């Protein structure tokens, strides 16, 4: 644990310089309700950071703050500092460029009311790709990497919302990948997905971490254990601890509540 009770925090440590994202003293409020209190955390390059904790512990709010979504959510207030590649995300001149480098996957798949093809081609189009052949290439690459290509290659022109739940979730992953993100945020992606698809997506994620940082918010403790390099535990807005996944799951915890949670004693 780093001095001052701030796990993985600290101003000028080597960690802070090399990390993809550094979060310092992040507090999130919705009106009077405090969703997250004084979070210090960093996201390293090419890691999967698991975030576990029971419902209402501030995990989703954390993801929203990383993407500066508070702008769109009435009543959401964010304090503290978040840097992305060393830059304060509050100070960037073009927040859209920032968001385009962060892919987000929601708990329930949101298939935009577009065709399968256009769902994946949207982000490239937004950043100015116009050539058909280039779009075709991006769409195929992203669908392949999301392990969906074989299933949808013959129905690229049908509505994305007509796919099955598991396919739709992979479609949203393909869509996130089409942004060519440096950071991928997954918010309980497997809630509405069958176990087989979940496994396939998990394999995809293991691959993807060679190219980007991944934050995996999950209510499935075992999923964090399978995938995450490090695991953070949130509880009712408090960041209890973050540690190597292997250590946490072998019982080496700094706070007994972490142990209780992963043992399934509450939550």
């Amino acid at each position, binding site marked *: 644990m780093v001095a001052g009770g701030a796990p993985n925090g600290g101003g000028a440590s080597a960690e802070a310089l090399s990390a993809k994202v550094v979060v310092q003293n992040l507090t999130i409020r919705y009106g009077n309700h405090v969703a997250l209190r004084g979070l210090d955390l960093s996201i390293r390059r090419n890691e999967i950071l698991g975030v576990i904790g029971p419902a209402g512990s501030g995990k989703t709010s954390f993801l929203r703050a990383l993407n500066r*979504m508070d702008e769109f959510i009435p009543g959401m207030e964010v304090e503290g500092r978040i840097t992305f590649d060393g830059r304060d995300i509050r100070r960037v001149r073009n927040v859209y460029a920032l968001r385009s480098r962060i*892919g987000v996957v929601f708990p329930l798949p949101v298939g*935009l009311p*577009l065709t399968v093809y256009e769902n994946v081609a*949207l982000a490239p189009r*937004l950043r100015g790709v116009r050539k058909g052949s280039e779009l075709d290439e991006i769409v195929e690459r992203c669908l392949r990497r999301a392990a969906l290509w074989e299933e949808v290659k013959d129905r690229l022109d049908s509505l994305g919302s007509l796919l099955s739940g598991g396919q739709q979730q992979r479609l949203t992953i393909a*869509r996130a990948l089409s942004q060519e993100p440096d950071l991928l945020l997954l918010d309980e992606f497997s809630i509405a997905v069958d176990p087989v698809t979940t496994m396939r997506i998990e394999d995809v994620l293991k691959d993807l971490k060679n190219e980007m940082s991944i934050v995996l918010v999950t209510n499935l403790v075992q999923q964090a254990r399978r995938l995450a390099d490090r695991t953070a535990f949130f509880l009712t807005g408090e960041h209890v601890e973050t540690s190597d996944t292997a250590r946490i799951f072998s019982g080496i915890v700094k706070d007994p509540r972490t142990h209780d949670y992963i043992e399934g004693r509450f939550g």
Partner: protein
Amino acid sequence: MTGTAAPLFAGTSLNARDRKIEWLVRALLGLMTALLILPVVIIMALLVVEGGPVISWEFLTTPPVDGMTAGGILPALVGTVWLVVVALIASVPVGVAAAVYLSEYAPDNWLTRAINLAIINLAGVPSIVHALFGVGAFVLFFRFGTSILAASLTLAVMTLPVVIVSTRESLQAVPRAFREACWNMGATRWQTIRRIVLPNALSGILTGIILEVSRTSGETAPIMFTGAAFFLPFLPQGVLDQTMAMSLHLFVITTQVPDAPEALPFGVALVLISMVLAMNALSIAFRVYVRGRKKW
């Protein structure tokens, strides 16, 4: 039931008296509803019976003659089309922009409340007051004179709430999750609106516009002093010309041309109401069709 100190709903089963009252109330309310609706049916029937024989291809394609006691209604028909089209050109962009602002941008603050109040009042101000505004603003102040332009702008201001309200409703029917997904991808608000929200609200917006066409083509008071003329044997050549209009023509031949044949105004009324109701039916049908093919 009345006058007793019994609990609110005494008894556990429906007794015969309650059931009888229920039946009577139901019948009475149904009858009153029917009486309210009936006039539409009777009016339509009367107009068709009395006005039907007047209508012919010639009636629709020739101008009135002999002091408007004979001939057709061509200039009035064409004039109404002019008035409606120019009014749409003016009001649709403004109305859609206003709806986009209210649905996609407006925070919950005093300004938004003021805008909503203004919209309600634009819809509620009497049409003759809109006419006074049209005379004061467009005819006199902006010096458009009595012209299609002045009349159409008056109509545009008056029917703006129709476009705003229906567009706002159809924008808000697009689920918020779509917007959030787009914003998360780094789309600007406008990119989100253009690529996702507007395409999915388009049919609803069209429904509103059709409704506005219906409203606009039937209005009389706002155009009386701003651009519509009692009688003009010519078709308008541009927006600065005056024009005849169906609604005013009906008023004129009903009240100002005493020696017009009795069936003539029925024919004009039939054509006018057919235009209006056809537009309305179209918008209702469109709405039903759209409801049936939602993409989510």
